[in-house]
């Protein structure tokens, strides 16, 4: 009995290491395949439009509501200590450092990530990728790489939009509805938010989340079993793995970036 457990554990460890190695190999193959993309930027811009544009509404609406909630909760807490003038700073720091990159990445995984996985999985199931290979066109170069870089570029832009709309949401609730002083709201934000420490680190975070989420989505689609069930499973895996990866990466990056 114990021997079987140990054997099963050994198999699991071996399989996991093999899977990670295969994924890493695929990632480097994707980077190699990206070499000639600068000559066909249209492929990337089309995908930025597709991926970014379709995620824009959900990102903006979510940003607005997160801003509303931050404005409310922030006011309740700060008001206890008579510091409601710092509401603008609290909203801006929460969004640029954490909520902007993280929530955008989670929403991106659910909206664009699943769409990418399903699209690539169905292309595989419909033999479109195999047909491309037989036409001497490398699908990694023609299909996967443009989508990958589009996701990587779109993510920081979407996170910036999320944060900007969120700040506006905080302003609407804090200043317009509750009556926090407008001058204090903006001046505290301007004085307390650092362009490098807060905003640049948030951009770096969202860039890395973009790499992780887009690669996971594309990898899951490319490696999906070419059946309806296989594509459905791959889509679910994209959301689960990408979300966990974002949360784990966020912890690591926060520890590295804001350790003082």
């Amino acid at each position, binding site marked *: 009995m114990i021997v079987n457990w140990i054997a099963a554990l050994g198999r699991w460890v071996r399989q996991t290491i093999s899977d990670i190695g295969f994924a890493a190999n695929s990632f480097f193959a994707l980077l190699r395949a990206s070499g000639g993309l600068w000559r066909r930027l249209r492929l990337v811009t089309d995908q930025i439009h597709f991926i970014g544009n379709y995620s824009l509404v959900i990102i903006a609406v979510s940003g607005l509501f997160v801003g509303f909630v931050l404005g409310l909760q922030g006011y309740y807490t700060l008001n206890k200590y008579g510091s409601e003038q710092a509401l603008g700073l609290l909203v801006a720091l929460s969004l640029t450092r954490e909520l902007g990159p993280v929530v955008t990445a989670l929403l991106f995984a659910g909206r664009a990530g699943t769409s990418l996985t399903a699209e690539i999985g169905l292309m595989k199931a*419909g*033999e*479109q990728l*195999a047909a491309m290979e*037989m*036409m*001497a*066109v490398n699908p990694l170069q*023609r299909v996967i790489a443009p989508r990958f870089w589009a996701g990587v570029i779109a993510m920081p832009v979407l996170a910036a939009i999320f944060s900007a709309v969120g700040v506006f949401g905080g302003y609407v609730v804090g200043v317009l509805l509750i009556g926090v002083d407008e001058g204090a709201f903006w001046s505290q934000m301007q004085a307390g938010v650092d362009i490098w420490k807060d905003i640049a680190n948030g951009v770096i975070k969202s860039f890395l989340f973009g790499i992780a989420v887009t690669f996971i989505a594309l990898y899951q689609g490319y490696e999906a079993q070419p059946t309806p069930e296989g594509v459905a499973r791959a889509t679910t895996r994209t959301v689960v793995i990408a979300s966990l990866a974002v949360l784990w990466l966020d912890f690591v990056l926060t520890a590295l970036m804001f350790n003082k």
Partner: protein
Amino acid sequence: MPNLVEIRDLHFGYGDRPVLSGLRMDFPRGKVVAVMGGSGSGKTTILRLIGGQLQAQSGQIRVDGQTVNPQETTALYLLRRKMGMLFQHGALFTDLTVFENVAFPLREHTDLPDELLHDLVLMKLQAVGLRNAAQLKPSQISGGMARRVALARAIALDPGLIMYDEPFAGLDPISMGVTANLIRNLNQALGSTSILVSHDVHESFLIADYVYFLSQGMIVAQGTPAEMLESTDPYVKQFVHAEPDGPVPFHYPGKSLAQDLGLGVPS
């Protein structure tokens, strides 16, 4: 070199399960050669091996004098420019129009001016009778039409070798006849070599110059369609005359009915 494609002592399998064993096949230039056999006999696998999408365990495949080696990506992609393949369900790009599907290989591999590319695509579509469907999406055309669009795409670069994977599967009799005629006529017009994988005896025998019969990964018979019709080989007879029982049994192999019903027949 009289043969465009040569297969020598080819072995292929998935894990321990052999799919193809010791194949030797020749595909002469300018001919239509049919590879026939039941489902799971390894027909499509042969096409994938010729196209370099699968790696054989041993043996050799040569196309136009060049060895097919999936490991040498650059050489393989150059070799594939001489090939066209019609997939079983067409494998059209569903987000592109019929026109753009046919234009795809031309856009990828040539720098033709737009006007010339436009005319070339329309000529290819004219050859398959779908010039007026150029602006439709794959979802707006029938399965038979999709197969013809895929054929137009496969011949876009005028390949020397065209491979057809079950081109008649799921087609109505009219579409089947149209497709069979197209395969024969295009082969003559382009001076290419065609490999036709099918289990449709009637249509394949009408257009093929030579036939290989495959069973359990091995060639069990070969010859002209006329020779195959006269063949006394039990497998060929069963296949050609669509007999329900024979070397390919009606019942899935396993225990007998008496054993399953517990009637005391010794195992």
